């Protein structure tokens, strides 16, 4: 069966992509995707003043009742923190602010004066309390949650699954280069180009691969990057230091059963640095790691070529 050409549009401060197989499912799938994205944006954004997450951060120290969607998103973020041994931690919100990520990236100054702050480790999730019975959360005072490392992937999984269920078609959803595929894939599979920047021009250095289902995510320190006092900064925070991750890899791609798992692994790999390839191998996750010099290392059965 044939797939549509990718439909792309701006969403969540990045680019959303949709492909369906057969093409006739496109309009209905697009409707589902747009509804999911609108819901995630008003729920999980750290930059919208009317976002539910902003209210939670503002009420740190007190119990806050959550919508089902934000409860699920925070639950996923806490699980991911556990699954990555703390390498992907949602309590890095304050650290991201301290390194200058204070507004939607499209409105962030690419350069600026040196930071005059003392960076500290993220508070950690041990004291984040999630009350499943009353669907509420309490975060410690001085802590800010940031769901940037998981919410996009979570939304991609939700939207792809719902669109596939509603249309009965194969659906591939991409959010900022994090992909989730549900339903019957095209005969040849879903064609994916892994590269440093999901908005890169055709022919950007990378690799073409085919997937059938599940998630494929790529994280990179070369995008969503800025400079302060000449220092290169980016959005991947090492929770153990509160600083931008400083590892040997500039870009990591991982395939997993879901986009959330794939994205958790790519972010963790950038934080883990030299230990990343062994960790990914042990998890059985196919991965492609690109060093700062462009050299490529693969793990977990990622295809070479």
């Amino acid at each position, binding site marked *: 069966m044939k797939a549509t050409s990718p439909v792309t549009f701006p969403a969540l401060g990045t680019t959303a992509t949709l492909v369906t197989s057969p093409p006739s499912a496109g309009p209905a799938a697009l409707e589902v995707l747009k509804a999911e994205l609108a819901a995630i944006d008003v729920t999980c954004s750290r930059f919208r003043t009317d976002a539910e997450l902003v209210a939670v951060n503002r009420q740190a120290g007190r119990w806050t009742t959550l919508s089902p969607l934000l409860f699920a998103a925070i639950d996923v973020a806490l699980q991911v923190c556990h699954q990555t041994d703390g390498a992907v931690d949602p309590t890095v919100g304050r650290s991201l602010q301290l390194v200058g990520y204070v507004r939607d990236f499209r409105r962030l100054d690419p350069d600026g004066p040196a930071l005059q702050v003392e960076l500290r480790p993220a508070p950690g999730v*041990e004291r984040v309390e*999630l009350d499943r*019975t*009353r669907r509420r959360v309490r975060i410690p005072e001085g802590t800010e949650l940031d769901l940037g490392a998981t919410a996009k992937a979570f939304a991609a999984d939700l939207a792809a699954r719902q669109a596939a269920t509603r249309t009965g078609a194969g659906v591939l959803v991409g959010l*900022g280069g994090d992909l989730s595929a549900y339903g019957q894939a095209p005969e040849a599979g879903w064609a994916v*180009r892994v590269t440093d920047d*999901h908005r890169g021009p055709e022919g950007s250095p990378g690799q073409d691969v085919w997937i059938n289902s599940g998630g494929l995510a790529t994280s990179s320190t070369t*995008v*969503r990057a800025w400079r302060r006092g000449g220092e290169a900064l980016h959005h991947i925070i090492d929770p153990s230091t509160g600083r931008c991750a400083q590892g040997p890899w500039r870009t990591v791609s991982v*395939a997993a059963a879901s986009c959330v798992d794939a994205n958790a692994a790519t972010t963790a790999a950038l934080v883990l640095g030299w230990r990343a390839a062994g960790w990914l191998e042990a998890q059985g996750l196919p991965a492609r790691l690109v060093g700062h010099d462009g050299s490529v290392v693969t793990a977990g059965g990622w295809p070479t070529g």
Partner: protein
Amino acid sequence: MRRPAAQRRRDEGLARLHIIRRWIVVLSVSAAGVLSAVLSQALPGRAATPGSATPSSATGGHSGASTSVVPSLQPPSQAPSATPQTSTTLPPPPPVQSGGS
């Protein structure tokens, strides 16, 4: 009127016994409390009532944390392939980019 010596010794003995018994009670209560505290630290329990708030933390590092086991990250059912899954006469769909964002 003076009590006989035997009666006096009996009363003094009973008084000593009363004091000893009181100390035994005090020490027993104290020991039970200490033992309870030690055991509650060593063998933490959890709330039995389903309606009570059971805060969960991702690391499960404190009492009252979620006891559910968090599954590890799940590999895909099939690793990506470097070539199309099947040869087809249909033109391949243009690739979707997966890159940093």
